[in-house]
């Protein structure tokens, strides 16, 4: 009897070991991030949930699909803001509500079918007028209505219900797919016209693209690209320094990319949204005091990476006003303004709540502590409430939670579309989805700007930003944020403000 229990359990242990050893092979070896000198290895913070082309305005999807797998009719040059030809070679505005696009000849889809005006019209309709809930529909087109009609193989006519001066810009977000694409449900692996096609997507592990030999444009340097994803920034940085990856994005300075790190200005701007409907924030002097009390230079040198700025859109976006400077740090002026308001009976002893969001940018909580310190020195009462994304979203979007008292919301805005129309209405309009306060005068300026085109449009939006800054002071804009990526010695790549949303593999060149 001695040892019989052990001898009985021995086969269990043995068979467990065999099972593990056998099954071990199925995970091992299934992750080919390697791929030789001709393949580019990219590590992302998260796996794209889908590669559905009409969800390309989602960062995780767009940075893989846009301009790599699928292409649009037009494309915006992120540094200059100019709109360049892509699958359309030129476009003209025939009347206030009608446009004609001339399409590129000799373009084929990855499945071999030719790119025609019919495919373009189909793609536009699929993205904007179907039941599949495209992200691009809500983000870029909101409630605008239009019809796309193929005139002949290389001519597309689009008519809009209302005048839409930036229609060609909006179309830079519609990725073109062949008419064989399912119009009624989302696709996981799209067919496009881009320089790369999907080779193998092993969900949860990697996504591999390979060069499309029939591409109409210039052949990219790398024959293939493998994407993997790691949530931890320090691991992403370590993968580049350890020669496991060539490109790592979404890094923070403390992730340790060392001299492999490349800094670039993004189009993200951090700001605090003041709830100007509640005392004491309903008094413009208090809102000005908040602006004077924030040490923006201190924030960007000691807390997060960026450049102080005075407006929500970065350079290169239509409507950016070069005249607007960041508010100066002037604690004395802030104190005076608060004292003045108090003397007039404003309830400056009401506690303001900073609604912060964990991880919105590196050291998000520390940044709010710096702000809190400045406001307290100015004579205000402030507490901080740090929330996770979903709880925070309840404060960001209408309808706002009731009974919260006066709040300052920690927020960040990135205008990736390149026109202030995608910023102004929703953030500063009286009825904007993310707006807690607006004025009739500002609404009028925004509406006028939205209908203008060309140089007038630039001026009209710039005026609206100036009016917001001088007369409304609804928020405290802090900084234009800096992004960080890491590159291996193998790759030459110059990131631009759109890099976070759009990483063009064709722009990545071999260093040798």
């Amino acid at each position, binding site marked *: 009897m*001695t*040892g019989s*229990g*052990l001898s009985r*359990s021995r086969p*269990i*242990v043995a068979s*467990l*070991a065999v*099972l*593990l050893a056998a*099954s*071990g092979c*199925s*995970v*091992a*070896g*299934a*992750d080919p*991030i*390697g791929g030789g000198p001709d393949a580019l290895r990219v590590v992302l913070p*998260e796996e794209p*949930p*889908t590669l559905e082309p009409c969800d390309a*305005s989602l960062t995780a999807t767009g940075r893989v699909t846009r301009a790599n797998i699928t292409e649009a009719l037009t494309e915006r040059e992120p540094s200059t803001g100019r709109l360049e030809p892509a699958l359309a070679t030129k476009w003209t505005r025939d009347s206030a509500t009608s446009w004609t696009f001339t399409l590129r000849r000799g373009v084929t889809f990855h499945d071999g079918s030719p790119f025609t005006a019919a495919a373009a019209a189909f793609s536009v309709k699929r993205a904007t007028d179907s039941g599949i*809930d495209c*992200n691009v529909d*809500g*983000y870029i087109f*909101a*409630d605008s209505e239009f019809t796309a009609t193929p005139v002949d193989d290389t001519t597309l006519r689009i008519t809009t219900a209302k005048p839409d001066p930036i229609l060609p810009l909006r179309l830079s977000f519609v990725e073109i797919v062949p008419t064989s694409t399912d119009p009624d*449900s989302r696709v*996981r692996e799209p067919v496009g016209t881009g320089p790369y096609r999907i080779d193998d997507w092993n*969900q*949860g*592990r990697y996504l591999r693209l390979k060069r499309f030999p029939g591409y109409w444009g210039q052949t990219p340097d790398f024959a293939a690209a493998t994407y*993997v*994803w*790691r*949530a*931890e920034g*320090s*691991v992403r940085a*370590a*993968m580049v*320094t*350890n020669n*496991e990856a060539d490109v790592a994005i979404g890094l923070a300075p403390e992730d*340790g990319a060392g001299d492999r790190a490349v800094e670039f200005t993004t189009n993200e701007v951090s700001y605090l949204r003041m709830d100007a409907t509640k005392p004491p924030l309903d008094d413009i002097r208090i809102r000005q005091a908040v602006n004077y009390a924030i040490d923006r230079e201190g924030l960007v040198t000691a807390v997060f990476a960026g450049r102080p700025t005075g407006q929500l859109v970065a350079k290169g976006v239509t409507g950016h006003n070069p005249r607007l400077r960041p508010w100066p740090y002037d604690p004395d002026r802030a104190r005076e303004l608060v004292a003045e308001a108090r003397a007039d009976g404003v309830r400056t002893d009401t506690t303001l709540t900073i609604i912060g969001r964990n991880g919105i940018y590196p050291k998000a909580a520390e940044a709010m502590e710096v702000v809190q310190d400045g406001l307290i020195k100015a004579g205000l009462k402030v507490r901080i409430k740090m929330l996770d*994304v*979903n*709880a925070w*979203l*309840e404060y*960001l*979007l209408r309808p706002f939670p009731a009974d919260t008292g006066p709040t300052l919301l920690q927020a960040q805005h990135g205008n990736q579309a390149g026109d202030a129309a*995608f910023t102004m209405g*929703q953030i500063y309009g009286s009825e904007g*989805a*993310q707006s807690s306060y607006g004025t009739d005068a500002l609404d009028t300026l925004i509406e006028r700007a939205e209908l203008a085109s060309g140089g007038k449009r630039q001026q009209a939006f710039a005026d609206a930003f100036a009016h917001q800054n001088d007369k409304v002071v609804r928020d405290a804009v802090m900084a234009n944020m800096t992004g960080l990526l890491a590159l291996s010695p193998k790759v030459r790549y110059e990131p631009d403000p759109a890099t976070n949303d759009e990483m063009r593999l064709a722009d990545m060149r071999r260093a040798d």
Partner: protein
Amino acid sequence: MLTLLRRRAVSSVVPLLVVVLGVFFLARLTGDPANLYLPLSATPEMRAEFAARNGLDDPLISQFGDYLAQVAHLDFGESLRTAQPAAEAVLRAFPATLQLAGWTMLLAVVGAVVIGSLAAYRPNSATDRIASFLSSTAASVPDFWIAIMGVLVFAVTLGWLPTSGTSGAAAWVLPVATLLIRPFGVLVQVVRGAMGSALSAPYVKVARAKGASEPRVVFGHALRNAAAPALTVAGDLAVGLVNGAVVVETIFGWPGIGKLMIDSVLQRDFAVLQAAVLLTALAIFALNILVDLSHALLDPRVRQRAAV
């Protein structure tokens, strides 16, 4: 034995239902997924449409009823994030975690038996003191810290191992080592304690007096009696590995159930979260039953009680 099995299976049903219920309602308390899935500028109509299409506009109770009915037909719903069946995502992720946990427990148990027995064999020796110190340290360091330090030391500084991923045997080392440390530390202490009292028990003296060899005394006689408490603790530790897996899989990009759970919580992907939790709960119940069965194999008293 069958009675024991049947009784444990039946008594698992209620806790399982509680888990399903809890996850269902707690997940829905965390916020409206429309905020995450629709653009910030989405109109109220788009939000209403989204809720209707995903069945999120019904009262919670009827949503839960629908869900139970679905599950009864083995339909676990569709992922909001990827629009694929939730069951598919979960079944794809589960083996990766199972392998990670399996290797970890195997190495932890084998290592702890050897080290713990050595320490108990010579109490207060240098071996014993080093083992006690290291194991209590190991039992108390956080997974997160070990994982990041492991990457920095062994991948970045020394370049011996890959930072992350699943390719090749070397990729297993850091995740397994990270997960291993705590169960190993705890088990060494348990084995040492149990072996200590077993080695001083009368039957060991009898065995020695009869002239049994020392390895046979330690691994044959004493270990068998020390195995029962160690097994119980090992079972609990294996259950606890699910927590560790969340951290370890997220850091190392391991495509397992822990990472899937964290992703689906962050993405409000209710169907996937529910399916992942349900499967994990089932696995834990199965594991507990296995532990009980092995207990019964090792200890005749358990068998007798079960037979009553």
